[in-house]
């Protein structure tokens, strides 16, 4: 007996909810949830999302959770905080790189003195 569209829609919602309950790794693409990959995995026709209001709502909620999660780090820092930390680390790295360069220069000058008796000014 052929399955009705309504039943298919209901089954798709059930499948999605049950899958989400299993705490899966949500596939993403360019920072957004990859609906195509999820649909493929759960054997849901991609176009059903726009026609099935329940599916649409679930995906919107999921999308919003993912986006919010991306904007906050696991220890609760905001994106702004993270950017500041990154900038600070980059500054530290730049200072360290500068120091490495200077030390390498000293070693080179030292070797040069030993080989030639000349001082690099």
């Amino acid at each position, binding site marked *: 007996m052929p399955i009705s569209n309504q039943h298919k829609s209901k089954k798709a919602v059930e499948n999605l909810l049950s899958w989400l309950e299993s705490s899966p790794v949500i596939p993403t693409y360019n920072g957004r949830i990859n609906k195509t990959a999820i649909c493929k995995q759960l054997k849901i026709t991609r176009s059903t999302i726009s026609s099935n209001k329940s599916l649409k709502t679930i995906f919107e909620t999921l999308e919003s959770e993912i986006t919010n999660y991306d904007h906050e780090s696991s220890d609760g820092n905001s994106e702004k905080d993270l950017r500041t930390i990154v900038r600070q680390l980059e500054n530290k790295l730049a200072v360290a790189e500068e120091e490495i360069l200077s030390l390498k220069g000293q070693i080179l000058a030292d070797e040069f*003195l*030993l*080989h030639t*008796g*000349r*001082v690099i000014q």
Partner: protein
Amino acid sequence: MITHPAFSSSSDDSQVIIGLIKSLLHTTDSSAIVSLVGGSERIKAIMPYRSIQVVPQIGEVWSLTGEYEYHDDYGEQFITSFGHRTLPRGTLIVAYFQHHIPGIGINKAKALWSVFGNEIYRVLNDSDISALTDKKRGNLPFDIAHFAIEKWQINKSETEAARFFHQKGFSTSLAKKALSFYGTETLDKIVDNPYRLLAFTSFDAIDKPSIECFGVELNDQRRMLAGVTASVYKAYDSGHMAIPTRELLKNVKQITHLSTEDSHTAISLALEAKIIVENYKDKYQGLGQFQMESFVARKLVQLLGNFGKGNRPLITPDLNPTLLAEFEKTNELYLNKAQKQAIALAFTKRLVLICGGAGVGKTTFLLALHHQMNNSPRVIAQVALSGRTAKKLADATQSEASTIDAFLTKVRKKPLADGTKLIIYEASTIDVPTMISLLRVLPSEGSLVLIGDSYQLPPTGSGLVFQALCDIPDIPKVHLSEIHCPASSTGIPFVLGDIRGEKLPAIYSFDKSLSLDKQVGLCHIDSNEKNISSIAVGLSYFVAEWGETQIIAPTVALCDDINIQLHNSYKYTESDQIKPLVRCKKSIALDDVIVCTKNIHSKNLTNGSLGRITYVYDHPETVILANGDTEISFAVAEFGGEEVKLSANDFQDIKLGYAITCNRLNGGEFDRVIIAMPESRVLDNTWIYTSISRANKQAVVIGNINILKALCISKPKELNRCIALPKLIEDAQYGPTS
């Protein structure tokens, strides 16, 4: 004629072409012939090294200035008068990316060109990384884009510096050296003070361009300071670590053509700027020389103080007399009092000098020391400057011994164990820079035994260490003087003992009819000045089968004369064929004896290393070095048992070595030495002593017998080197004194 936009023309007769090196068609010791590509055009370019300084490599983009010439056999060729590596133009960027940026292949490089076109140059010049990583444009991963920009900026600095140096009349090689130290700051540094280049070249080479192109006045402070610096360097190159005030003033005047008053001012300014330091009231040192000798002084005083890590006094073990007796019994010999004292000191102290000439039992001392050390947890490392001496040391002690260069290379990879006793053999040949390198690798609780003969000529490099330490009373030392029986059979140790005591030794007329076992001692062949070289050559031939022989002469000119004669005699095979010549140095052939005239650190060879050419490549071979660089090898030579591949660069510091000057021998010993001895101002008691000391069995002097006799009984020349080490050791021990 090249028409592609990548190739640009300049006015006058000369043209500028820019292209990518597609292949190296031919290389010689003086030039490279390359195939250069710009777009679809291809041209053969001749690049003499004097015009380009660095050997071109495939994949590099070069800017060449020169003229086209038509050759009957080879067709049109571009003859380079000046060339430097440069940045690509137009579509050459595709090949540039492909060859210089790992991660960008030919297809990606073409894609970048099709997306950006000429805008790629703006992107790279402005370090516009976002354009390169933009998914819709460059689409490069961040790290590759970052590397591409970094590489471009380095190449850009190099290109700008090469152009700048050329315009200002400096050589391209100078640009390369300056770039290697100053990097992207090169131009700023040189514009600020062109005399900074003094570290890489002579005062004369930079003075004229500085005055003409940078508007430097004769009494400009930068020039005055450079004059003082150049004077210090001149002294250093002659072996001195310090310079007396009067000499410094004379040099400054001579180098800068300044008045006496201005030269005095220059010295005062240099003192103020800490370019020189005042060692004594009448002696100055360059800053570098002061730092070098101070380092040696501090390290030696640490060893003298017998302190280990954190100034904790070291517990020095006592000598085991039972072991000493066991050594004597096993080897059926008796150690004399001085030898026993030497062993006791070397075993218990952290710095000891063992002084003595040939045949006084230095090897026996070493064997006994090894015997003691075998029963101690501490280890011995043995080094000598020349491969020949290191091999002799290893054979005599049946323990590992290396050349100093090879030892340093090894120790940099695997540091010495704490408490290592480092034995430096023929220590009189060690200059200050070498001593610094050795002291640096000596572990904090290590110790040093220096064995040498203070009567010998000073080292080839600058400074005096062993000879200076011999005169410092606080340093533990033993003089071995009793000549041992086995060595005395050749008569050489007695000859040396007599010369050291300014007495006439036994001199025999060389008699070629004597059997080989009777060919010993100091012999003489009378000759006038004119015939000395040909007699030396004939004798060298005659004794070729008698063991290792080396010719010694006082002057480079005489050595060259003898070397050419011997090279010409040996260059034919038994079937009268000419032996293969080294393609980049045609004065050297297969089987020739060669000598290094400078240190070649990349090959662990020092000034004076003697070798023999064992293989000559028909087609030079590309070799990948340990540091990842590639070079083209032209021949293989054997140095002290080690095979070494030699490049055109190496051959610049290598010449024929059948005859060499005495100070280049670096402590090597031979069965026989032939001493070609015309009248020369170089000759003195120390010179003849050192020359004869190189022979284990026989020394044959060719020349005037009266000169030889006079040299033997003359006073040894003072080791004419101005140094500050004794004063700096005193300062390090007791605090600075004026």
